């Protein structure tokens, strides 16, 4: 494992920058202190996150890691706190839904955190609403470039030519399969289907043995995310290139959704699958396949009697694609004026955690940082590692303020199609009409 080398590298680089950094850091802190925290232009302070040598500061960090990932995150933070005598990071955890609703109010009343963890598709909204601040200096000071990350993840953090998020990880949709059920159907569990032909053949073989192959959920989690992946696989997209129009009623997109609907029509999936029922059925051995988030790996590991494997999504359409999202670190704007020391310390923390994201990978996420993915330590995390290749073709939502509401129209249309309420084409057309209204409305509102 590289871990023997990596801390040494860190040590060297830290020592090297310490010589440089003390001078630079103090100078920057002094200059900024002189400015008295000008909050109209919250930007560069310190040396961008290499070191922090100022007085002891307390930082607050908010996240939504309510599952097993939360424990791992806290352990990492504890480690950081012991290694850094002059920085103390305190963590508060909320459910993601509450978190995104709570954060703006907290920030505008001056009670917000210093660092906030955020999904990639939220960055643009929160940047446009001036809740988080640009981080370009962190990226340049730490010499982080696209090469250190997967391009898709790295570019997702940019809004209006400025970087607002440093990616921590990415969590794609994966293909889970029951090895025991595959064996029963005479399929080789060592070779899960990788393309349309193999996938459909496997479903047919399972059906012949009276085993339910798939549960096509009509809800965003996880059917809608499967549909989203397939739209991209078939060569479609949710939006046009400059995200001014929704285009998920294109022939490619409709073909993708029709494929999902046909799974139900052809009896490869039961009709009217409820929320979470697809995953419950998979765990109970009532479904051979399930397309679900990478976060289920740790949950499945808790049930030793479930015989399962995980692989990248099979390529059903003309190219590979998979829905994915990413957790990003952001620095929050402070209504009462930025504290240069806190901002500098926050950047040190973000850089440190990004470098230590291998431990985070044990929480069931693919680290965003390339050097961590290439380390032998990561290679040993077999299940998570199996989904790492998806990083190259992951389909992230675009950086657009208010995009969440617009994407919801796709999930609603998908729901109507899979439940047989509307013909796929009609459902997508109706959805696109509403999406375009919302896009125009958002453009007016955010002045995009």
């Amino acid at each position: 494992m590289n871990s023997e080398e990596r801390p040494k590298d860190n040590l060297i680089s830290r020592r090297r920058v310490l010589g440089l950094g003390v001078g630079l850091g103090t100078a920057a802190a002094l200059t900024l202190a002189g400015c008295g925290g000008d909050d109209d232009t919250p930007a560069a302070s310190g040396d961008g996150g290499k070191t922090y040598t100022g007085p002891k500061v307390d930082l607050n960090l908010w996240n939504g890691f309510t599952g097993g990932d939360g424990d791992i995150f806290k352990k990492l933070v504890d480690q950081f706190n012991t290694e850094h005598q002059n920085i103390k990071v305190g963590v508060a955890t909320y459910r993601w839904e509450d978190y995104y609703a709570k954060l703006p109010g907290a920030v505008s009343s001056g009670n917000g955190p210093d660092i906030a963890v955020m999904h990639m598709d939220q960055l643009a909204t929160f940047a446009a609403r001036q809740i988080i601040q640009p981080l370009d200096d962190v990226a340049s000071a730490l010499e982080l470039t696209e090469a250190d990350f997967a391009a898709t993840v790295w570019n997702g953090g940019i809004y209006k030519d400025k970087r607002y998020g440093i990616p921590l990880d990415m969590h794609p949709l994966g293909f889970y399969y029951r090895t025991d059920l595959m064996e029963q159907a005479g399929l080789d569990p060592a070779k899960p289907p990788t393309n349309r032909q193999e996938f459909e053949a496997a479903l047919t073989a399972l059906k012949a043995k009276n085993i339910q192959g798939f549960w096509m959920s009509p809800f965003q989690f996880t059917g809608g995310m499967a549909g989203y992946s397939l739209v991209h696989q078939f060569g479609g997209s949710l939006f046009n290139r400059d995200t001014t129009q929704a285009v998920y009623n294109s022939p490619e997109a409709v073909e993708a959704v029709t494929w999902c609907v046909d799974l139900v029509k052809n009896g490869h999936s039961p009709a009217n699958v409820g929320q979470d029922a697809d995953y419950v059925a998979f765990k109970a051995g009532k479904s051979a396949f399930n397309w679900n988030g990478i976060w289920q790996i740790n949950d499945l590991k808790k049930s030793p009697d479930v015989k399962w494997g995980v692989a990248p999504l099979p390529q059903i359409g003309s190219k590979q694609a998979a829905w994915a999202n990413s957790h990003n670190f952001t620095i929050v704007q402070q209504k009462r004026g930025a504290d240069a020391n806190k901002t500098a310390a926050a950047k040190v923390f973000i850089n440190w955690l990004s470098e230590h994201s291998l431990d985070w990978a044990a929480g069931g996420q693919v680290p965003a940082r390339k050097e961590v993915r290439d380390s032998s330590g990561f290679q040993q995390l077999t299940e998570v590692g199996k989904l790492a290749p998806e990083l190259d073709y992951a389909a992230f939502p675009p950086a657009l303020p208010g995009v969440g509401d617009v994407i919801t129209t796709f999930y609603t249309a998908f729901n109507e199609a899979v439940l047989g309420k509307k013909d796929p084409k009609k459902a997508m057309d109706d959805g696109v009409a509403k999406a375009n209204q919302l896009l125009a409305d958002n453009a007016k509102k955010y002045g995009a």
Partner: protein
Amino acid sequence: MAPTRARVRRRGAATPYLFLTPYLLLFLVFALLPVVLGVWLSLHQWDFQLPNKPFVGVDNYRDLFDSNSVVYSFWWESLGATGIFTLLSVPLLVVLPLGLAVLLNRAFPGRTFFRAVFFAPYVLGVAVIGLLWRFLLDANLGLVNRLLGLVGLPDDTAWVTDLPWAWISLVGVTVWWTAGFNAVIYLAGLQDIPGELYEAAKVDGATAWQRFRHVTLPGLRPVLLFVVTTTILASANLFGQSYLITQGAPGTSTRSVVWYIVEQGIAQNDAGRAAAMSITLTLMLAVVSVANFRIFRYRED
């Protein structure tokens, strides 16, 4: 003597207002002020994070009635959804608990136990009953369909993803959940009706139905007014059940109006539109409530 008494009277004149002050302050700060601010918000395009909060006049209201606006179809669909739910649930929630209360008002062994049983679901939070019923009603894995199958009935009803079943589920769950509360209110009302009236009616040869019709119902009139009004308002506030059990499915057909308002205000950060919708909904409910009072008062006269 006289001046003292006058002073007391003068001082006494302030007493009722002094007693009312604490609540009045709370009312002003937490009820009246938010309403006034809500009206103010509704006249703006208001995202509290954005520096620019332009005054838009009545645009937010006009959008609700303009079929070309972005909110029009969502707003009327969600309003229709709440309307359907209210029309289906209110009659059941007014009549069933009344029957329940009449039964539970009789003397029989285990009466306290049954009173507790029928009231029990009401103490559960909406999150609990929502998750519980979502899984019980699941079309493929749920206990409800399993039991129906065992007795030879169709076992593939899509209770939460198809119409009209989704409405039947939502109304059924809500009746199960809140009927006990209305029953307790009725029960209190029943105990206020003097026993002599029933005795007199019996002496006059009234049947059980006639005693119910001419003694119980008139005796319960003020209670009925209360139950009908609060039940309509509670049903019109439908949110948690559809948010958790059907999640709006199919499509957005079971998304309630309160849910949509919350989404506008908190998820889409448009407090101005959300406020305009809230105020319009409030006015609609006020009309219904006034009509309600009129109907009951008319009968009283």
